[in-house]
């Protein structure tokens, strides 16, 4: 199947139906392996067992930005190439991104309370991620406000591209400003500062959450294509009556 064939929603749904069981199985295996590694990972010399929160906090923090990146690429697909599946991809990614951002914020708070002595501070990293969460909710609200999916898609694409400005702010907030949040410890010049015994389970958990996103995103896109089919059929029926 050529890549261009994926622009056809019927072919896309057929492809998704074929690969979803494999993706779901790969996600389950990755989670099983990652959670096993999390269980075996040693306690941190300063944080003790509390470091185990890192294995779910960090993958969700990565994903909340990654999903917005996927939505930004889809927004370009909507505005520049008018790809028929681009706004479907963006619409279906928004609730998943909101859920991952929510988890990053909540698990971060639960990690911060015993380590920093507080659930929340209005520092640059935490505030910029909270802004991202609010932008996800705004996008979901926009999609629900406008009835016509094509019009909603264009408005949402513009909002998504404007919101993408927040991504470098989140990433570099710990370098640009003096924050309570620690600086980057995995993707940084000079290599990761996390020990291998923790880095490997962290990488596997990040892979598991990413596979979860891909699986749910493709399944949600298939559902959205079916929903639009139902809508079109009902509109056609109403016009005939």
């Amino acid at each position, binding site marked *: 199947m050529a890549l261009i064939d994926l622009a056809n929603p019927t072919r896309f749904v057929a492809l998704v139906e074929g690969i979803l069981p494999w993706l779901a199985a790969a996600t389950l295996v990755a989670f099983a392996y990652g959670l096993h590694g999390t269980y075996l990972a040693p306690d941190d010399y300063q944080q*003790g*067992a*509390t470091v185990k*929160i890192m294995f*779910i906090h960090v993958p969700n923090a990565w994903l909340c930005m990654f999903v917005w990146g996927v939505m930004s690429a889809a927004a370009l697909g909507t505005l520049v190439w008018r790809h028929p599946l681009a706004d479907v991809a963006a619409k279906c990614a928004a609730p998943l991104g909101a859920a991952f951002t929510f988890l990053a914020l909540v*698990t971060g708070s639960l990690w911060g309370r015993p380590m920093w002595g507080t659930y929340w501070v209005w520092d640059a990293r935490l505030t910029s991620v909270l802004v991202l969460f609010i932008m996800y909710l705004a996008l979901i609200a926009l999609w629900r406000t406008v009835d016509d999916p094509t019009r909603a898609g264009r408005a949402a694409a513009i909002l998504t591209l404007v919101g993408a400005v927040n991504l470098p702010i989140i990433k570099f907030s710990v370098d640009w400003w003096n924050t309570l949040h620690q600086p980057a410890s995995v993707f940084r010049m000079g290599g990761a500062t996390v020990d291998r015994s923790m880095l490997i389970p962290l990488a596997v958990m990040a892979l598991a959450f990413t596979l979860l996103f891909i699986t749910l995103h493709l*399944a949600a896109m298939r*559902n959205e294509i*079916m929903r639009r089919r*139902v809508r079109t059929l009902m509109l056609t029926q109403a016009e005939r009556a």
Partner: protein
Amino acid sequence: MDLGPHAGFIIAAYGIATAVVATLVTWVTADHFAQKRALADLDRRGITRRSAEPRPAQVKEPA
């Protein structure tokens, strides 16, 4: 497994993550069945896409 003095925070973090992931999976699965039901209902009422309708028989014109 000894989770130390902050066990409550660790268990809460994993518990909330499990609940959110379970909610996402349930939502996507339930939505799939809802759309499938809606399409099947329309199909029963004879409302189908043009591409899914049977093609009319081709009548050969006499030469």
